[in-house]
């Protein structure tokens, strides 16, 4: 449909539109404001880590990084655990109950976070879950559990039933079958879901914005957002923050690129 030259031209132009801003951000994070505005494309004069030191120390991004690591580090495995239990149960139950439980869990995908944020805020207030990381973890788990059940449950349903039957004839109870048969066999879908959840939980902004008040409890996206207000045009500082906030996901992406695509499209094509 397209000639080879126009095909290459489109791809090259879009590659430039992706690469150039990212390069400018990477270079800019080492520059002073004057240096950035003088020439956004030039290489930084020095690789001084001043901007990073300032955002980590002065802007509390260091503690936000820790908070994000804790929240994500617990939310992802917890969601996967609950979702894999549910997925396993649903894949072994039969008939109406299996359908009803799966439907109930998956229906949650249709509820946007903004739809129930007011009652959730009130509920969290009553349970003492405001302004602490436990509340964030819980909110993360709840909001992504439906899609995780969808991905894992969908996969577990395709596993051959004979394996389960063989396992129970061998005398294994459901828990043993879950942990020694269903879980290992579901590894590909668990890996995909893990990466999908990692990206969502690491980047989550609405719940921290709703629930967190004290600066010491901020996660990275919230900390970034709040210093946008303070440093309107101090772009080098914002860029250092962007790089710091993106680092774990980017590093993981470089090594696990294939799985990222599988994970996020598992979410996209079933979301």
């Amino acid at each position: 449909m397209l000639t080879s030259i126009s095909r290459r031209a489109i791809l090259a132009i879009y590659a430039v539109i992706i690469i150039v801003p990212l390069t400018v951000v990477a270079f800019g994070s080492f520059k002073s404001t004057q240096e950035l505005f003088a020439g956004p494309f030039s290489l930084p004069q020095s690789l001084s880590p001043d901007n990073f030191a300032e955002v980590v120390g002065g802007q509390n991004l260091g503690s936000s990084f820790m908070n994000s690591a804790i929240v994500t580090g617990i939310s992802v495995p917890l969601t996967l655990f609950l979702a894999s239990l549910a997925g396993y149960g649903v894949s072994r139950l039969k008939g109406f109950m299996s359908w009803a439980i799966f439907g109930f869990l998956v229906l949650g995908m249709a509820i946007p976070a903004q739809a129930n944020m007011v009652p959730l805020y009130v509920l969290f207030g009553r349970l003492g879950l405001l302004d602490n990381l436990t509340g964030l973890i819980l909110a993360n788990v709840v909001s992504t559990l439906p899609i995780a059940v969808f991905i894992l449950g969908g996969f577990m349903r395709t596993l051959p039933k004979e394996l389960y039957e063989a396992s129970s004839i061998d005398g294994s109870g459901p828990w043993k079958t879950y942990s020694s048969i269903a879980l290992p066999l579901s590894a590909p879908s668990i890996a995909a879901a893990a990466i999908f959840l990692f990206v969502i939980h690491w980047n989550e902004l609405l719940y921290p914005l709703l629930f967190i008040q004290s600066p010491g409890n901020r996660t990275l996206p919230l900390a970034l957002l709040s210093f946008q207000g303070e440093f309107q045009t101090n772009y080098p500082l914002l860029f250092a923050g962007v790089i710091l906030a993106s680092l774990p996901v980017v590093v993981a992406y470089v090594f696990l690129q294939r799985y990222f695509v599988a994970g996020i499209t598992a979410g996209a094509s079933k979301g």
Partner: protein
Amino acid sequence: MSIHPGTAAKRKAPGSNAPANPAKVRRRSPTRVNPALYLFPLPAVAVVAFFLVMPTLQAFQYAITDWNGFSAAFNYVGVDNFVRAFTKDSLFTNALTNNLKFVLLVVIAQTVFSLVLALLLTKNSRGSILLRALFFFPTILSSVSVAFIWKFIYDPNFGLANSVLRTVGVDGGAYLGNDAQALYWVAVTQVWFHSGQMMVVYIAGLQAIPRELYEAAEMDGANKWQQFKSITWPFVAPATSIVVAYTTVQSFKAFDLILGIAGNPPKAALDILSTRIYSTFANSEFGYAAAQSIIFMAMIALVTWLQRRLLRLTPKGD
């Protein structure tokens, strides 16, 4: 349900000690369900029921009150909040209009663009695998990061876009500073952010098309456009409905991106439903915010339903 005489006979046939009730027969079969299996989905069901479904139902209750979130006293005001949103609150109707405009823009642009990218990168050559990875990359960044990057691109004085334009002697625009255009520029950012993700969905769809179809079409003398129209398009129609549905929800929820690029609260030209609900909530109008969030949810459901109806018209759709 009509009972087939054959089946009925078969069920009653087994020996004298077999129970007449077919349900009992099924439970006695070797693949009967172990009741312990009900315990497995239980934690997830409890969590979803208590923290997702119950609050959503409660939103309907709050929506008909004038509760401010703090005082114990509040009144039931019926549909007043809904009437207020549509007739007396220009901030809300503005956000609604912006949101629909934004969704329409992003869905059209992103669907077309991600399909074009996918078509250009279907072949599994080294180069296209590398480019796919590059184009997908923005998807993994946080919305706040993407917002900052683009805030810098659009900065009228120091920004990247105008720096480039100045070198070729063109006066750049104010971009986000121009209220008439601001929403379009954020739509561009959203497309940059997520097209790679949708491209990958399309590539998966495209790679499922049997090569032989194209070979056959070529032998029949079909040109590239005819091949696209009668082979590629019917095959990617299912992927299209996924891309459109997902992009719709994603652009309805562009909350993070708007807050990052426009600040909190965003100016009217960039206010969408999710940011408006948040502002109403932050303003301690809990009842009214709940009503707005129900309108929001209904909007998403309505637009998604409309799209499913429209897309069903395409061949092999749904």
